[in-house]
């Protein structure tokens, strides 16, 4: 699987997205570690960190944590001691990062996400993600490897400089590079010029790339992504079936029920569960629902036609099961017609993702987003961009998504030759920017582009503006 070419540089590639973080070695075709960017944190007022460690040990032995990566207790203790030292004597924060850790129920564990709108908001949590990626997952010594990190195209310069500081000051990497994720995605399908549509968990964006450079004028994005679709599905279930999802962690025993009947299960006693944890677990159940059942209508949405399509059964963790017909299409329709399908403000029982009327009015369907982004570019470039639309991000994996785009786009731009490129496998599409970074960083010739530690020490963090663009 290792496909080194050129020098063996042993570079690392890190791509922190709003839902998943991907980390691995440059030159490989899949990231070594993929784990949720959301992390769990427990804050205690205790002054004695060790007493808490003893309390946590039995929890880790819970059967639910079977898939947890082996984390050495030593590593944990070290991380905690460090925290205690940095966050003052009063508050002790213990972090839980990784698929198994985040999803294991613990009293008072809050779930947080360090990113907002694709940008880093919570630097302390972000640093923990890095720590976990390098120390626990890849188990490497940062001083021995150059690091290539991806960033969204709209990352402001203060955050870029902060990233550089994090890499050199906190982690002591010998060399660093920041690459735009849209450019990496375009490269990974062999395009230097493309319109990259990236629809992920929190954000959907359309980014024009020309000869490997992002055209800032054409960047369009909106906070409508997979999380909104999930929230919408929860609402729909509540409204039409009067069912609210009970996540796995609450379920003790369950009985088989007939389709559509209320679930019969014994709830586990889970005191002091935080709202954020409950929400994350609900989203997980819905996520599975989305992957199994949901689909995008290939042609314009028409309830009568779609209702005739075969139904699909789905069983929730608590045993509730039903077959779903039109719901499968309705939930995803907000990607293409957000104005008609987003929940209006003030709707009862809305789950978290509420938009103001103004936001709804400003929202665009994905095809419209692509079209407007292209129209924001120079007129000579437009045919090129239309001919190279690259779709990436987990949200684009709904069956029918590409077909629908293929149907809608020509309607907006009659006469233009439109070609949509989508990587075939789901890993490729979820990790396209990581993959791009991996290949780029593995090139022997890439070494001249790295920011070295010496350069950083000479010019300061602002060097990122002249080296990475």
């Amino acid at each position, binding site marked *: 699987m290792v496909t080194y070419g050129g020098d063996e540089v042993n570079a690392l590639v890190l791509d922190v997205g709003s839902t998943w973080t991907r980390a691995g070695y440059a030159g490989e075709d899949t990231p070594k570690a993929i784990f949720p960017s959301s992390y769990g944190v427990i804050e205690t007022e205790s002054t004695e960190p060790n007493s808490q460690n003893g309390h946590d040990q039995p929890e880790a032995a819970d059967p639910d944590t079977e898939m947890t990566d082996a984390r050495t207790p030593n590593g944990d203790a070290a991380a905690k001691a460090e925290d205690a030292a940095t966050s003052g004597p009063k508050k002790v924060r213990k972090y839980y990062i990784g698929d198994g850790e985040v999803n294991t129920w613990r009293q008072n564990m809050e779930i947080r996400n360090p990113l907002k709108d694709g940008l880093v908001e919570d630097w302390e949590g972000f640093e923990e993600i890095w720590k976990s990626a390098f120390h626990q997952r890849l188990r490497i010594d940062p001083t021995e490897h150059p690091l290539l990190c991806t960033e969204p195209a709209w990352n402001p310069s203060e955050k870029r400089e902060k990233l550089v500081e994090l890499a050199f000051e906190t982690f002591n990497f010998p060399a660093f590079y920041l690459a735009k994720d849209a*450019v990496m995605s375009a*490269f990974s399908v*062999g395009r230097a010029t493309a319109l990259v549509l990236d629809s992920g968990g929190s954000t959907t964006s359309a980014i024009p790339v020309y000869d490997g450079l992002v055209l800032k004028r054409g960047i369009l994005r909106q906070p409508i992504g997979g999380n909104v679709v999930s929230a919408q599905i929860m609402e729909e279930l509540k409204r039409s079936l009067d069912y609210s999802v009970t996540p796995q962690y609450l379920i003790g025993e369950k009985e088989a029920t007939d389709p559509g009947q209320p679930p019969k299960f014994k709830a586990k006693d889970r005191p002091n569960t935080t709202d954020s944890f409950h929400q994350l677990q609900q989203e997980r159940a819905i996520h599975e629902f989305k992957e199994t059942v949901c689909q995008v209508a290939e042609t314009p949405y028409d309830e009568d036609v779609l209702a005739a399509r075969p139904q699909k059964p789905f069983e929730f963790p608590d045993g509730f099961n039903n077959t779903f017909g039109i719901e499968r299409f309705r939930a995803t329709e907000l990607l293409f017609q957000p104005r008609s399908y987003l929940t209006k403000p003030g709707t009862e029982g809305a789950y978290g993702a509420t938009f103001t009327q103004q936001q709804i009015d400003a929202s665009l369907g994905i095809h419209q987003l692509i079209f407007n982004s292209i129209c924001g570019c120079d007129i000579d470039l437009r045919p090129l961009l239309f001919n190279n639309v690259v779709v990436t991000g987990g949200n684009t994996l709904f069956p029918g998504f590409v077909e629908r785009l293929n149907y809608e786009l020509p309607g907006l731009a009659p006469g233009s030759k439109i070609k949509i*490129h989508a990587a075939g496998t789901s890993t490729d599409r979820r990790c396209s920017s990581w993959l791009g970074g991996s*290949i780029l960083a593995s090139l*022997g*010739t890439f070494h001249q582009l790295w920011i070295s530690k010496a350069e950083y020490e000479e010019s300061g963090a602002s060097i990122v503006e002249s080296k990475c663009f």
Partner: protein
Amino acid sequence: MSSGVAVNEKCLEVFQELKLRHKYKFIIFKLSDDNREIIVENAAETGEYSTFVSQLPEDEPRYAIYDFEYEKPGEGLRSKIVFYAWTPDTAKVRAKMLYASSKDALRRTLVGIAIEVQGTDFSEVDEEAVLEKAQRSN
């Protein structure tokens, strides 16, 4: 943003011969085996367009230059230098990525290109498609 791959001197030399003396009809470039520089794979002195297209590998990317001649209605014969970035969909991701990120280096070295074509399948590089572009670009 580029990969830092260099362009072999020979590339420019051969290109100048094509541009100034019309010694060649088309040139095909590729990345050297160690992926460090772009080299000339093939330079043909004569060749129909179909011969040129048939030399593009089906599942590997290439760059190419073709000295394209066409008849402008009422104004006689014209010639345009066309640059091709050939990256078929069936190529390996790594190769696609390498060619995409290195294109700029070659493209900037070769001065005097009138038309640029990004090709992913044979329909995008066929004579008709290029002719249409040539006529539009005066």
